């Protein structure tokens, strides 16, 4: 019996490991080609480089303000995610703290907003941002991303329903005002969901393509995703140079993945169960 199980496990490994390598092949393809010359890459796309070169990375850093673009992306992501989590959690707290006609109406209205796709509001939003003179600014991008607060609200309010209400009630009787209860009791209690929702929103903002392509038009305001799509038109023939861009853009996501995998999987399970 044990032998059969062992054999089954070996067979599974023998099938699954090569398949997983096949799925990961595009990432190997990206990485290995950054060390090749143009000619080498076109005849030998999957092999190891014939002669090792750093030129592609050098040309990347001399052609684009990579560090600044990285800084832009971090700035937009951190500020917008912090604001949307704050906004969403405040609304979720008020919803739990005091149920009234107002809270029921607000809950319904937000559900309505949740069902309106981005594509339906994007044109008026664009005109609005242009009218405010915020087009091609990082702050304009952040303002648009705040729409994500509605998603944060739904995930957080679902989690808050599982938090014991007695703690809040006790603090209320002790005379703590709502601001104090929110900041020093509720926020620490809901830390797990704050992490999960932040991880998901960071992935959304960091990876978003549609918003920066619409609202950003100058290279020094680029985000990393835009950098990649501009590099592809700049390096139409120089494929290895583009692969170097891809590596630079993918490395932060790889690091993020390694450290946040647990929270992503948790969020997949909990978020989807409750959502």
């Amino acid at each position, binding site marked *: 019996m044990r032998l059969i199980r062992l054999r089954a496990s070996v067979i599974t490994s023998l099938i699954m490991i090569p398949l997983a390598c096949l*799925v*990961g092949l595009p990432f190997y393809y990206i990485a290995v080609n950054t060390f090749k010359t143009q000619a080498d890459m*076109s005849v030998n796309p999957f092999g190891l480089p014939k002669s090792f070169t750093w030129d592609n990375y050098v040309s990347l850093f001399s052609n684009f303000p990579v560090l600044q673009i990285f800084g832009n992306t971090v700035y937009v992501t951190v500020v917008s995610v912090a604001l949307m989590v704050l906004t969403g959690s405040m609304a979720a707290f008020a919803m739990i703290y005091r149920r009234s006609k107002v809270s029921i109406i*607000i809950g319904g209205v937000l559900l309505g907003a949740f069902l309106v796709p981005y594509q339906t*509001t994007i*044109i008026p939003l664009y005109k609005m941002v242009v009218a405010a003179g915020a087009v091609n600014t990082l702050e304009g991008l952040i303002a648009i991303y705040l729409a994500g607060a509605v998603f944060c609200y739904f995930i957080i309010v679902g989690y808050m329903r599982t938090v014991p209400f007695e703690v809040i009630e006790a603090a209320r009787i002790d005379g703590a005002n709502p601001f104090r209860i929110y900041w020093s009791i509720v926020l620490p209690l809901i830390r797990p969901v704050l992490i999960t929702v932040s991880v998901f929103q960071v992935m959304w903002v960091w990876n978003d393509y549609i918003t920066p392509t619409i609202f950003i038009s100058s290279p020094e305001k680029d985000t990393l995703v835009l950098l990649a799509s501009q590099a592809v038109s700049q390096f139409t023939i120089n494929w290895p140079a583009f692969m170097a861009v891809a590596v630079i853009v*993918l490395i932060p996501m790889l690091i993020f993945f390694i450290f946040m995998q647990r929270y992503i999987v948790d969020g997949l399970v909990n978020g989807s169960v409750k959502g």
Partner: protein
Amino acid sequence: MATMTASVVTDRSRNRIRSRAASNLVERLQTYAFYVPIALVFVVLFAIPFGQSVYYSFTNLAGLSPEYHFVGLANYVRVFTDPSLLSGLVFTLFFAIATTVLITCLALPLAVILNRKFFGQRFVRAMYFFPAIPSIAILALVWQFILSPLASGALNTLLHDLFGIGPVPWLSDPTLAQISVVVVGVWSLTGWHAVLYLAYLQSIPGDYYEVARIDGASSSQQFRYITLPMLAPAITVSTLLLMTSGLNVYALPQNLTSGGPGFATYTITQNIVISGISEGQYGQASALGVVFMIAVGVVIVLQLMLSRRLQRS
């Protein structure tokens, strides 16, 4: 004396009631303050633009000219008659349905396998999962090099070296381009959904399988009568996510094929961005946005009804 005490007492309790009412009002106002940020977000980013979009969709508002008038349903009629708009609608639906079906059929068995113990399990799981993490825009750009229809494209070089097959027009033939977009979509999300199923699988009590094994159920019977019914809620969630993300598809075809060749891989969102932002056809693009919202709503309702019926039977 007695009456005085009584009146003092009532005075006090009245004061207390009054102060409690006042503190109640203060607390209520304080609670409302928590709604201010989300109310701002709702009004500025949802209510106003949504209202404007519906309003524009009945006008011929375009470009920089401030003059426009009502055109009734003309924009809506064009959504269903203009060939480029129509092909965007058709390909988006095709993509959403094809990726949903394929990913579900692949992710379910994958999750069952990943639930077993075998050497290299953690590596395999992470490898399948990872393509969902980076921006699909960047991955699509990379796939553009792999699937390049030129003889120097990576896949074409490989096929030539291994089998001597001439360059395959992966992205330049309309049908192959559509298939390529779907394949890259499936590649990027199958692992993600397998992990979602895996999480539900791990919550199925082991006793169920134990009992089934004692009763002599084969492993395919176990899958059919235990695993699949227990996964029903997960299937609902996963297919719903896939359908909505499929209908929203934009970055993938935009970066892999730019909607081409011709309009073969054109999507609704690409249409809205191009006609609404680049060409300034606000009226027309808004009508498309409204149609899109209704289409997504209808698909979600239909799907929920279907899955509820399946779960009952």
